[in-house]
């Protein structure tokens, strides 16, 4: 079989049948509308699934290696560069893990500002996925640009989506300096905090976003969803009072309830002999599901009643086990994030200092925050002068990978009678439900399901 790597096109192609072999291969040599680069191969034999191969050929960038020897204060800037789509998530997990290590706790207005920053990222990243990456799957287009050029109502839809996304970026830009790789986040807080006046202006901008976010939920609920349910183990943070972002215990739909520091006791990264992929699984071997759908299913009682009502109006019964419906969960989180942002802006009082002081010291720290795509684990070890000795980063996409593979195996029988083109598209859609961020995968992933 040719190496999918050598074929760089996103051609959705079918190699010619070899003689009268019953073998068929459905291949997507480069996944489109995902962040980063991956490929997908499903091998069928006599209408039976022989092999599913989800290969992420994103080049390894070795963040955990070059973080060693850097000073802890540099870490939030460096880890942001793991992902241009969700840099805030990396900054938040880094900061919290290192603050735990240094023995400080950021509270008050600084804590609120961090939550606001995260709201910005959820809005921006979720809206990007909903409108630009996911919507074309539901409406049957190659891209949102093609949608916009084809029909005026879709142009209006995409325009609305872009405006909503812009509101998220406006939050990040104000608090972070820029939308991608914010420069204003540091261990202990920020370099510079906004004035009440600046936040008030931002609040004005968000008013329009609130309407757009409600429309987004309604629109998402109007889509057709394939019947595709599975009894996943949903895993997310859960906070005593809030919808989770930066804090909480780690819980699952099967009764897991642990402090986030215990993550390594219950979850494991592993490398299989036939692959150099690091994947993550429950220690009992099971796959699990992280991300907006998991968060929503486990935490919808933590949003204001008005948003719960919007959720009920979608006609979906929550908790929901259909990954296609993740687009609604995502849009509900956008609505929540907009409301939460407005709440924070309205009640904001400028802190005395933009950051809490800390002393670099030797220690260990680990933290989980809720990245747009799900839980993001960071663990660090430092020496006495605050230089990083060890770093461990487990992004949500690594954690969902086994689950994506599982979904592909489950959907494969349905692909048997489809044309290769159509089958490939259906398989891609399964992947895109997860909004996979392959650039986030700091580990080089190469997944093979061996022929039995």
């Amino acid at each position, binding site marked *: 079989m040719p190496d999918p790597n050598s074929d*760089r096109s996103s051609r959705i192609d079918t190699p010619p049948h070899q003689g009268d072999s019953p073998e068929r291969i459905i291949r997507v040599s480069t996944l489109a509308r995902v962040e980063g680069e991956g490929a997908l191969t499903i091998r069928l034999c006599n209408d039976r699934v022989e092999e599913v191969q989800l290969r992420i050929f994103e080049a390894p960038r070795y963040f955990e290696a*070059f973080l060693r020897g850097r000073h802890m204060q540099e870490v939030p800037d460096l880890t942001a560069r793991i992902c241009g789509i969700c840099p805030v998530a990396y900054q938040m997990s880094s900061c919290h893990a290192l603050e735990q290590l240094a023995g400080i706790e950021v509270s008050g207005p600084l804590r609120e500002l961090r939550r606001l920053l995260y709201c910005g990222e959820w809005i921006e990243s979720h809206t990007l996925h909903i409108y630009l990456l996911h919507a074309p799957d539901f409406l049957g287009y190659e891209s949102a640009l093609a949608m916009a*050029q084809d029909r005026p109502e879709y142009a209006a839809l995409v325009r609305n989506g872009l405006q909503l996304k812009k509101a998220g970026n406006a939050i990040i830009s104000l608090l972070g300096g820029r939308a991608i790789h914010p420069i204003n986040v540091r261990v202990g807080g920020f*370099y510079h905090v906004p004035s009440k006046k600046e936040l008030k202006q931002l609040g004005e901008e968000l008013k329009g976003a609130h309407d757009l976010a409600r429309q987004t939920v309604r629109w998402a609920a109007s889509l057709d969803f394939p019947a595709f349910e599975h009894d996943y183990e949903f895993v997310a943070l859960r906070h005593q009072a809030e919808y989770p972002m930066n804090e909480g215990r780690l819980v699952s739909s099967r009764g897991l309830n642990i402090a986030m520091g215990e993550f390594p006791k219950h979850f494991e990264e592993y490398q299989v002999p036939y692959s*150099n992929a690091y994947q993550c699984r429950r220690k009992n071997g099971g796959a699990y599901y992280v991300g907006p759908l998991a968060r929503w299913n486990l935490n919808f009682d933590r949003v204001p009643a008005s948003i719960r009502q919007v959720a009920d109006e979608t006609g979906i019964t929550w908790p929901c086990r259909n990954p296609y419906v993740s687009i609604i969960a995502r849009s509900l989180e956008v609505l929540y994030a907009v409301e939460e942002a407005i709440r924070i802006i309205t009640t904001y009082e400028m802190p005395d200092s933009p950051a809490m002081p800390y002393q670099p010291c030797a220690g260990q720290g680990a933290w989980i925050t809720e990245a747009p795509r799900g839980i993001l684990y960071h663990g660090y070890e430092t020496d006495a002068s605050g230089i990083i000795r060890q770093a461990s980063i487990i992004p949500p996409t690594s954690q969902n990978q086994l689950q994506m593979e599982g979904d592909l195996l489950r959907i494969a029988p349905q692909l048997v009678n489809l044309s290769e083109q159509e089958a490939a598209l259906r398989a891609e859609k399964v992947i895109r439900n997860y909004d996979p961020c392959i650039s986030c995968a700091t580990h080089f992933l190469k997944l093979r399901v061996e022929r039995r």
Partner: protein
Amino acid sequence: MTTRKPRIGVFKFASCDGCQLTVLDCEDELLDLAERVDIAYFLEAIRRPLEGEFDIALVEGSVYTPEQEEYIRDIRQRSRFLITLGACAAQGGIQALRNFTPPDEYPRVVYALPQYIESLAKSRPASDYVPVDLALQGCPINKQQLLRVLVQMLLGSKPRVPNHALCLDCKRQNIVCVLVAQGKPCMGPITTTGCGVLCPSYDRPCYSCFGPAYQPNPSSLTRRFAHLGFAPHEIQRLLHGYYSQAPEFREEGQRYARS
């Protein structure tokens, strides 16, 4: 002037996707831009095969795997004007910190079975393999700069990007020098403009995510840092950051690494 819409392709190499995301972050301009140009290949946003030739290729990321060496040559052959986006494509990016280490060190740190890892020993810029017509600097690039360059090209002129020291734009914004007034190790005097003077305007020293300015004088600036009490390893980390492979930063940083 040509009536045909220019054909644009966006291509990804080893990167965080942030620079190409900048295109999608043009929320107010994206749909209008798509009217003026034909965005013919852009995997992050469009499910369409790679085919044909491009008037403008926007290349993100560094060359870091054997396949990417072939890929960049292919893109160059298909493209009339090749613009690199960001620090990775221009100088190898943050991942080029590996270039200072023995080839097997990083894979051993990260992977239990490093022998399966397929990457080149060094993260390299596109210009190590093919001629590059224009490099937009930054980690990530600046949206306004990208749009400006595209508009200049649409108007038929040769795009130019300013490469003077950040200080000029810092003072145009009336920002008080954080190096002189606060003794912070600001890289602005040797860093190229383009970011919009973010860090000093947020009361933090520039950490040079846009790389060296034209004809920088790093040894003079680092002497000053040393005079202000910064240790050699701190100075070295400032130089060996997002543009560690820019020759001026690489060499000056290595001087401090040795001391």
